[in-house]
């Protein structure tokens, strides 16, 4: 595959970077990234990955666009209210960059379907843009079992966090957080609120990790939890060890099947 003249122009600011070049841009164009959740985190991640020329983007979301989403989920517009989020996301990406093939999965991820979704296109990298702990643990366990790299993130109020799992290279999400907290034990965005830009900052970091992974450049957030406090404008990169007692990636894993945690999806319809 050679870059067309139009692609040479579109990606010229990438191509001029010695870490990317024409070769790297071709890698991006042939790469496959799955984004689970097209909300606060997934929306900006998807847009920057599309702009960067990630050639295949999968979008997973069961939800429809609501007016209260638009304060932060920038891939959706006012006219998109009531549309399925994956459809709205696909339309925005198609308008932005015709180089990107978008595959949509309008479904709730469960133990029964998540591996098939990841294997559908044999995605190279997965972005967790979900809002609830059952989904976060499900994505983690599926990625560990399939040995797929993924980026975890969460945002709430003025704070965010993100870490990257690379198979065999550092901890997984469950190494740090053994099991989901009970429903309502820790606040969610709906209950607590979130500054709209938080997803932009953290979701864009997730997109950066995906791009670096595909290009094979720099160092990733494996073995680190990056936390961001917008009120104090403070980033902290906390080193985290692999947990040998981890239920899914430890020395003696006890979790060998995916688990649908018995916890409701966040209540948000009104």
């Amino acid at each position: 595959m050679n870059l067309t003249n139009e692609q040479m122009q579109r990606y010229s600011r990438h191509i001029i970077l010695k870490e990317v070049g024409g070769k790297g841009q071709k890698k991006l164009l042939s790469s496959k990234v799955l984004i689970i959740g097209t909300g606060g985190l997934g929306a900006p991640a998807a847009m920057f990955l599309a702009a960067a020329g990630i050639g295949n983007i999968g979008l997973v979301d069961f939800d429809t666009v609501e007016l209260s989403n638009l304060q932060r989920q920038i891939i959706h517009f006012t006219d998109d209210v009531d549309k399925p989020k994956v459809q709205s996301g696909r339309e925005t990406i198609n308008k932005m960059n015709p180089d990107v093939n978008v595959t949509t999965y309008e479904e709730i991820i469960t133990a029964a379907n998540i591996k098939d979704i990841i294997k559908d296109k044999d995605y190279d990298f997965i972005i967790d843009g979900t809002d609830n702990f059952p989904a976060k643990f499900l994505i983690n366990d599926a990625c560990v079992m399939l040995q797929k790299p993924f980026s975890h993130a969460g945002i709430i109020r003025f704070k965010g966090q993100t870490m990257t799992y690379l198979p065999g290279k550092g901890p997984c999400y469950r190494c740090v957080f053994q099991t989901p907290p009970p429903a309502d034990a820790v606040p969610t965005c709906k209950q607590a609120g979130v500054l709209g830009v938080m997803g932009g900052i953290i979701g864009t970091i997730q997109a950066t990790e995906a791009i670096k992974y595909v290009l094979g450049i720099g160092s990733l957030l494996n073995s680190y939890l990056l936390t961001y406090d917008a009120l104090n404008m403070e980033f902290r990169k906390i080193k985290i060890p692999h947990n040998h007692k981890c239920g899914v990636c430890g020395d003696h894993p006890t979790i060998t099947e995916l688990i649908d945690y018995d916890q409701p999806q966040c209540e948000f319809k009104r």
Partner: protein
Amino acid sequence: MKITVNGEKITLEKAVTVEELLVVTHAETPEYVTVQINDEFVDRSDFTDKLVNDGDTVEYLYFMGGGSL
């Protein structure tokens, strides 16, 4: 004794357990926080016994769930 908690240096009169430290430092949702001392996880079952020592670096790692909605 002086310790570092989440990047901030704090001074304590005497040695405390992890459980006591969570209280004096006003940790949010202490029942669900993951605690790491000097780059090693502390088992929750050890929170009541494990002492925080002079010079230790302690990190609280919190659940953060939001994103999609």
